[in-house]
């Protein structure tokens, strides 16, 4: 982005909602501040963007003085923050005595910065950018040779960054991503630094701001990837070459397909749904998928759609099996024709081409897929996602042959409902990504979510489930406030994988139990996508037609409307927790 465009985007706007971000650095923030505001505005076009900065030359103090009440903080560290003599604006000396002192000072300051960053991250999300500028030529070594001081400072910085990357609530901007976007020799504007205190070229400031904002506020993560097989998952045409004839190895000059399979294996491990859409004979596909040298288990793919029908129809069936919207899915194929056909029928699906003869393009595709599916933490529920879908399909097949009540009784279902809190990352994830069973569609920033839990009378429960088809992990969150004998629920979400098991009934019963309330009031808002929750609320409130607003459910009415529940329920709170 050019400065001119950034200034236009960064110009003050009137808007109903303000988004406050702190930009904390030791240098004059100048154009970096402009670019950060611009990227925030691009990310949140309807918000009024407000950034606050700190004092020149005092990064540690700026972090300590952070209000902790913004939507996030971008902390940019440069060498001069570890020792002012590492700045070109300082004339503290490049003699031997100074160099030894610099190394020691840098170690102490790095420790203090880590402590300050850990403290500020407790109340707001933080992104850290480590030093990106070159060190001054302050040692007696020829420039092509790294001095001991340079190696020591680089090692110190690497250790600091490693610890920062592992801190809860802190994200570290990738050094290699910055290196790809901003060549090292084009980052430093010495003239600007000497004249104004701002050390970056415009291009580098742009890249740092872009990386920081996209780390702090990542775009929505996709949920599923549908892949073609021939010339995509493997080299060769299965129908011509046979099961043994397709390849994915260095020896067979088809290593790019191995790289792609490795990526899919990694995505599956992190909970991404994988499916196949291939124009092929289904029996030969089944045989090929059983090859023991495939780099990911064939069970990772569900469903596997192999037929001679248009791929858009396969995609349609896959979306239905997954119960996800098209805009949360990516389709990968080597054929531009197939991509165009799917894109026309499913414009929400992102269609990306696999170029089997262009390794650079394959690497670029892999990086793009990492961007689409990248997430910070892999949870137990991620590993269960694909298998739970497969189990749900098996369950549905069995259910159609039996009476619903009998079927649920034979599930041997176990529900665990336990108290949780604002630090529960899975709860925060569920609340912010669930659409269909969602009481009011409300989303929360981390700061808002934590604050919510500190209000008087508040409660927050997490629900986990398993049955004879397997565990689903933590699949629902319900929360609210208790006042006397009334509990108001203002947060209630449940994963769509958990439908049709009467878990929502068990959850409501647990809320009555946990709160001791005689009345529950649901703070309900109708959205485009929460139809499943609307049906449930109608059922238990015995209201023929519900609308947005407060919906009352008495204990007596619930007991009357609730169907038989067969789950074995365990509760994870003490009696003293009841309000």
């Amino acid at each position: 982005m050019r400065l001119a465009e950034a200034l236009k985007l960064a110009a003050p706007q009137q808007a109903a909602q303000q988004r406050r971000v702190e930009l904390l650095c030791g240098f004059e923030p100048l154009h970096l501040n402009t670019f950060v505001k611009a990227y925030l505005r691009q990310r949140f076009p309807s918000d009024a963007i407000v950034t606050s900065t700190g004092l020149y030359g005092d990064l540690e103090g700026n972090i300590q003085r952070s209000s902790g009440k913004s939507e996030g903080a971008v902390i940019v560290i440069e060498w001069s923050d570890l020792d002012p003599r590492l700045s070109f604006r300082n004339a503290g000396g490049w003699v031997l005595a100074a160099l030894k002192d610099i190394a020691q000072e840098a170690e102490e300051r790095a420790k203090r910065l880590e402590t300050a960053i850990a403290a500020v991250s407790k109340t707001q999300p933080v992104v850290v950018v480590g030093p990106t500028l070159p060190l001054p030529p302050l040692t007696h070594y020829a420039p092509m040779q790294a001095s001991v001081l340079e190696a020591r400072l680089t090692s110190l910085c690497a250790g600091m960054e490693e610890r920062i990357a592992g801190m809860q609530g802190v994200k570290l901007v990738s050094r290699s991503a910055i290196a790809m976007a901003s060549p090292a020799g084009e980052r430093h504007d010495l003239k600007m630094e000497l004249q104004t205190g701002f050390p970056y070229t415009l291009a580098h400031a742009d890249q740092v701001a872009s990386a920081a904002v996209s780390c702090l506020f990542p775009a929505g993560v996709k949920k599923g990837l549908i892949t073609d097989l021939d010339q995509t998952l493997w080299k060769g045409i299965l129908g011509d070459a046979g099961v043994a004839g397709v390849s994915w190895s260095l020896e067979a000059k088809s290593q790019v397909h191995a790289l792609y399979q490795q990526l899919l294996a990694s995505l599956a491990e992190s909970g991404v749904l994988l499916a196949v859409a291939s124009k092929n004979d289904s029996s030969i596909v089944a045989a090929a998928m059983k090859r023991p040298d495939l780099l990911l288990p064939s069970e990772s793919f569900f469903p596997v759609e192999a037929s001679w029908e248009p791929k858009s129809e396969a995609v349609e069936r896959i979306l239905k099996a997954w119960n996800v919207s098209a805009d949360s899915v990516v389709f990968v194929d080597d054929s531009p024709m197939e991509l165009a056909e799917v894109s026309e029928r499913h414009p929400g699906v992102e269609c990306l081409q696999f170029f089997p003869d262009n390794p650079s393009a394959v690497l670029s595709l892999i990086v793009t897929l990492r961007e689409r599916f990248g997430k910070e933490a892999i949870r137990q529920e991620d590993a269960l996602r694909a298998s739970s879908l497969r189990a749900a399909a098996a369950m549905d097949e069995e259910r159609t042959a039996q009476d619903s009540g009998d079927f649920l009784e034979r599930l041997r279902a176990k529900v665990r409902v336990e108290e949780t809190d604002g630090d529960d990352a899975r709860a925060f994830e569920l609340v912010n990504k669930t659409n269909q069973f969602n009481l009011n569609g409300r989303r929360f920033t981390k700061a808002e979510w934590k604050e919510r839990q500190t209000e008087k009378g508040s409660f927050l429960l997490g629900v986990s489930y398993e049955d004879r088809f397997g565990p689903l992990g933590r699949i629902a969150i319900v929360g609210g406030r208790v006042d006397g004998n009334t509990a108001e629920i203002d947060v209630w979400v449940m994963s769509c994988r958990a439908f049709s098991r009467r878990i929502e009934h068990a959850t409501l019963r647990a809320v009555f139990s946990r709160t001791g309330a005689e009345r529950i009031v649901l703070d309900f808002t109708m959205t485009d996508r929460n139809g499943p929750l609307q049906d449930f609320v109608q059922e238990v409130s015995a209201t023929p037609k519900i609308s947005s607003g407060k919906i009352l459910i008495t204990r007596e009415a619930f007991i009357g409307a609730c169907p038989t529940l067969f789950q074995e329920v365990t509760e994870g709170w003490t009696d003293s927790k009841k309000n």
Partner: protein
Amino acid sequence: MDGLQEKLAHCFSLAFPDLPAAEISTASAESIPGWDSMAQVTLLSLIGEEFGIDIDFEAFEGATSFQSIVERLKEMGVDG
């Protein structure tokens, strides 16, 4: 306004978004309260980007009006 002045006016409109277009050609640090040293740096950075030239801030010291900046640019051989 010639081409140089039009491009410069565009830079002024970005650096000082509240400045009415009609007042740009007579704008100066005396007439615009927000024209401080950092605004000067932003304006000169925009000029460098717009005209594709390397700006020496010290060479523009004292050039704190639209007209004086026009003169300075012409002295540097910059045209629209």
